[in-house]
């Protein structure tokens, strides 16, 4: 059987997305992004030596798979 999930991409592409801007990431955004990623990377590196309270929080996040799966991807459920 053909991979129909993959075929979706081709179907969608056929719809066409005309007029997309080729504008690159704005310079100030790129600077902010790099600064944010540097902070995130530093925290990732330091997570192994976190104090007990934060390690506990990490354990909670690891258990997040117990939450219905959709919540991992989007906060769609609404009022």
């Amino acid at each position, binding site marked *: 059987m053909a991979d129909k999930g993959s075929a979706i991409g081709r179907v969608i592409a056929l*719809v066409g997305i005309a007029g997309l801007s080729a504008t690159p990431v704005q310079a100030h955004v790129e600077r902010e992004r790099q600064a944010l990623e540097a902070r995130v990377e530093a*925290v990732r590196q330091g997570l192994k030596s976190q104090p007990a309270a934060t390690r506990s929080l990490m354990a909670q996040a690891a258990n997040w798979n117990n939450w219905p799966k959709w919540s991992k991807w989007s906060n769609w459920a609404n009022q």
Partner: protein
Amino acid sequence: MEQLGQPVNGAAAGFADFSPALRTRLLILQGTPFCNIDCDYCYLPGRDSRERMSLETVRLAARRLREDGLAGDELTAVWHAGEPLVLPPVFFEDAFAALAEELAPATLLTHSIQTNATLIDDAWCSLFLRHGVAVGVSVDGPAHLHDLHRRTRRGAGTHAAVERGIDALRERGVPFHAIAVVTAATLAEPDAFFDWFLDHGVRELGCNFDEAEGAHVGSSLQGFEAAHAAFLERLLQRSIDSGGRLVIRELAQGLQRIAAPLPSYRHRGEAWPDNAQVLPLALVSVAANGDFSTFSPEFLGQASAAYAGFVLGNVHRGGYLQSLHGDAFARLWPDIWRGVEACARACPYFAHCGGGSPVNKLYERGDLAATETLYCRSMLKRPFEVVLQRLEAEQRNEAVVR
């Protein structure tokens, strides 16, 4: 069956694909649009309609997924967009059986119900336990906060009825989580809010920060962003102090996004961070009459001349993949993708988000191709930043101790 993947108008060559292959992750089924209460912040139109999904519609909603190859190894079906429990338990017995007949054993199906809990009794608890239903209760915390907005059509508060429903769940040992709408009034009372859930046996709480969507045209949180940050900081402290007895979804997700990169997919030759709300057919919403939509589930039932009411098709007339050739999708998809690309260009948090929420872009900014929204700030950026700052502070303290 439609010949998918074949060139249409001879234009297939050179177009990028999605990788990994797209699959439907969540099937949202509107058993009925009717709701027995009348919350003033509800986005959903048609809550007075007593229309009811037929068993044939349930079957077709699932069969189309299977026929289109969209059902992977696992799928969650959630009953939502209206109060599901105004339908009788036997409706769900029949619906669950129909879904299983169409999808099992190839697809492991999980049932989920989002309910206001006012109608939960022993019979419902038996059904939840029998089928392992993941129950989400919509409740806003203490009565004085909840009853501000979650009222009957006659204006009476519903909190007492919700508490009775929660008591029934607890007495029968039915696992459940809660989703609360947080309004400006809630921001001043983080401890009372947190304690109420802790005292009622809730272990996982999703905070839906009041959003402007559909019939609910304005958020009470506009102009309260500093208070929102303080609220999140307090919830984080309380969650840590509770030893993990109550986890806040937005903070846990922030932590996850910091701890590890989002999964990515490839489209048009480039890698993009995963976001189910911008991936076609990742989330499929089916209305009681069989109309279906994708992307943000809140689109279903909303009026829109520009996007044909966000209705891509109807399961009685055709499949999901076939609908991607239709006019509604042809209008919707390019604008949503422009929004994703705009976010990629303009937002430092893009790698941790993947393009925001289309429905919020449209209702807050009037444009699917817009970028930042109040939703972005309240649901993603600020929880992310609060958790990140907490981790940074902990690391600094650790360094000083050493």
